[in-house]
């Protein structure tokens, strides 16, 4: 029963603090999978990659994946329900008590601080993902200064820069770019 209870507690917490959507939940999920030794950093970044190409919001994909890895099909079910449950309860309660939604002063004050914090979370997701894709290890390490050429994975790094330009400057859609990166990776990255 312990794995099921742990999974429920972890993903209920993530769902409850999941302001800012799926990308902001990634660093929370990363923290817990490492703490509980459910998966390595490398497998976590593969989870993110898989979630990008499979249907469904990334947070739900990730909950199913982690739950299955930790406790099989039952674990997948529990983690998925747990990550959605806080929103389910909160949306229903809010709709019951508020006829027309206008941010209250208290909620407004809290969100005023939470919104920029979610930006910090999303940016940290980029770092965690980079450490096992375009870089060769943690960002807090001396190897970046000692031998940068070994520390940076050249081809993935080129993919990273290319995607930044195509998505940021040329506004090409994320699904197209993900599929393009997958096809190019299959051909060129060994």
């Amino acid at each position, binding site marked *: 029963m312990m794995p099921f209870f742990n999974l429920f507690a972890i993903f209920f917490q993530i*769902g409850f*603090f999941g*302001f800012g959507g799926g*990308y902001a939940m990634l660093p*929370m999920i990363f*923290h817990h999978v490492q703490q509980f030794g459910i998966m390595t950093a490398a497998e976590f*970044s*593969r989870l*993110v*990659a898989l979630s*990008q*190409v499979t*249907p*469904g*919001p*990334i947070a739900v994909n990730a909950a199913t994946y982690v739950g*299955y890895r930790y406790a099989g099909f039952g674990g*997948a*079910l529990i983690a*998925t329900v747990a990550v*959605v449950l*806080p*929103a*389910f309860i909160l*949306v*229903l309660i*809010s709709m019951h008590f508020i006829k*027309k*939604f206008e941010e209250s*002063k*208290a909620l407004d*004050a809290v*969100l005023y601080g939470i*919104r*920029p*914090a979610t*930006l*910090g*979370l*999303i940016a*940290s*997701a*980029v*770092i965690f993902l980079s450490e096992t*894709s375009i870089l060769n290890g943690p960002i*807090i390490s001396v190897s970046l200064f000692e031998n940068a050429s070994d520390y940076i994975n050249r081809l*993935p790094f080129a*993919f*990273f820069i*290319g*995607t930044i330009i195509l*998505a940021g400057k040329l506004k090409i859609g*994320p699904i197209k*770019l*993900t599929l393009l990166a997958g*096809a190019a*990776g*299959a051909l*060129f990255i*060994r």
Partner: protein
Amino acid sequence: MKLLFELFFTFLKIGTFTFGGGYAMLPLIRKAVVEEKAWMTDDEMVDCLALSQSLPGVLAVNTAIYIGNKKRRFMGSLAATFGVTLPAFVSIIIILLFLDRIEENIYMLGAFEGIKAASAALIAVAAYNLGKRILKGKFEILIAAISFIIIVFAGINAVWGIVFGGFAGIGSYWYRQKKGDIR
């Protein structure tokens, strides 16, 4: 009963075509809910999005809960939520069943490396676009920087970044109230 099935299938479709962060799904949700099904007006949709974005959770899921509840109360919410999450659940389970075989394939591993790098870039672009919208002053920049630093360099649970932001928001509100900027 018919409406429950409609809620389920409409959100099943939305869940199937949602990828990644899900913000790209907003036009599709609006089209299905406002234009095709006429479950809500555009004004009601604005209310729905305001609430969905102010509460924790995934946007596509929150709107499903909201619209389901609006149409058929609790059971409606359940049907819509089940529909919007099912594709994510099923697709991951199927992939995991075949993951061992995927790991043996050199082309698939290359594809993974490509997608990992592209994902990091896409999330970076999402962060940049969000930053352009919300980093309006020193307070916002400070909160974003502190939450980033404590997560990446101190390795604490990212949940604390959210808690910190919430308290900082309340603190700033008190401060501005005391100064007389707001009443």
